[in-house]
């Protein structure tokens, strides 16, 4: 029996066709290798590091644990879909401003996780922020600058309301 499948994927609002792919490919693999969306990173391939964090029907998950073919029919959001017209979101800008980026490998996943957190909890406590990013491993920064970036976003968003 053939283990190859063809299906459509809707990513960041655009339709893509995946043709004749091995059925076992993860969504992460499909995003990176077939659709050229390399913002999601493939570090651990077992859902431990969060560098592949994406939104599937508005729910934050690890793309490495989603079967590409099973994501057909869902709305997929990746880091490339944040912001518009090449402008950084406030979360991305805060990462720049607070020097929260060193090697940058964890950064897209963290940006996704923090956007997801603040979309659901505009004023999280520090413990809530730490729990929200507990699925994103950073080996460079020690997280201090990352927490400062979240603080900056919360401050600026509160001031704007």
């Amino acid at each position, binding site marked *: 029996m053939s283990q190859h499948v063809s299906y459509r994927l809707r990513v960041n609002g655009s339709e893509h066709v995946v043709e004749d792919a091995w059925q076992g490919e993860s969504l992460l693999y499909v995003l990176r290798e077939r659709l050229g969306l390399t913002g999601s990173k493939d570090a651990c*391939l077992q*859902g431990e590091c969060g560098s592949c964090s994406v939104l599937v029907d508005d*729910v*934050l998950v*690890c793309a490495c644990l989603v079967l590409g073919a099973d994501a057909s029919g869902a709305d997929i959001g990746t880091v490339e879909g944040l912001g518009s017209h090449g402008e950084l979101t406030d979360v991305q800008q805060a990462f720049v401003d607070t020097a929260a980026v060193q090697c940058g490998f964890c950064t897209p996943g963290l940006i996704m996780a923090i956007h997801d*957190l603040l979309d659901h909890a505009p004023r999280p406590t520090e413990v809530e922020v730490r729990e929200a990013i507990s699925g994103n491993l950073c080996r460079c920064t020690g997280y201090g600058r990352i927490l400062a970036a979240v603080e900056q976003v919360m401050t600026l968003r509160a001031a704007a309301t």
Partner: protein
Amino acid sequence: MSVLQPSTVEEVLGALDGEPGAELLAGGTDLMVEVNFGHRRPASIVGLRGVEELAAWRREGDEIVLGAGMTWTQLRQDEPAALVPALAAAARTVGSPQIRNAGTLGGNIATASPAGDALPVLYALDATVELASVAGRRLVPIEELIIGVKRTTIAPGELIVAVRVPVARGPQEFLKVGTRNAMVISVCSVTLVVDRPDRSVRFALGAVGPTIIRCTEAERRAAAAVDWEAGELAPEKCVEIAGMVAAAARPIDDHRSTAEYRRRAIEVMARRALLRTF
């Protein structure tokens, strides 16, 4: 088609019956890891993402029926969490937000790891698991469904549809130790369930045996020792009973921890659970 996306339980059962070697895919937190590392190559895959009825829950009198497709995040929602606090507490300790958004109650049961975090809660609550196949439905007590390390009596073609547990009638606690505060497989865990009307105390231990352990001696002693009118248990009795709970553990040394540490941690957590409760 070797990846199927059914929308109803009936369609799932038909797919399992019709496709030899079909494997179920819920949250993917177990199966996809194996696929990613080449340890499993399912002949075909039946995705459960679209089967909305599996993620539903309902109250039936003194029981709550939890859909097997409920994710850890959904188990933490206010309403089900109020009815089964220990399960919501356990859910909070699993993985990360990304993992909690994907992993399911049914998957935790089907994987049947000795360290599965829903399992000690289900054992403490004497949960009943509802399974379905084209041949019909059956209800199986959780302790009969899981028979060893990652071994269950789920038959080919069967889908876990729901889990039935009693609605909480007293305090519940779930404590877990891991090598970090998040993203960890349990080193060991203690679940405490108190049923005030029944005047019963249940202890279930995770990750300290091939399957979940119920501490029947400690449970008997605790039920007899609690002053049920006042809802109190003397601190020295909490300590004594915690020792009995730890004695019931059957921990091993492995890459995560040692038997000695696990037994000690069980005792500490059992004591904390009792002191917090009474």
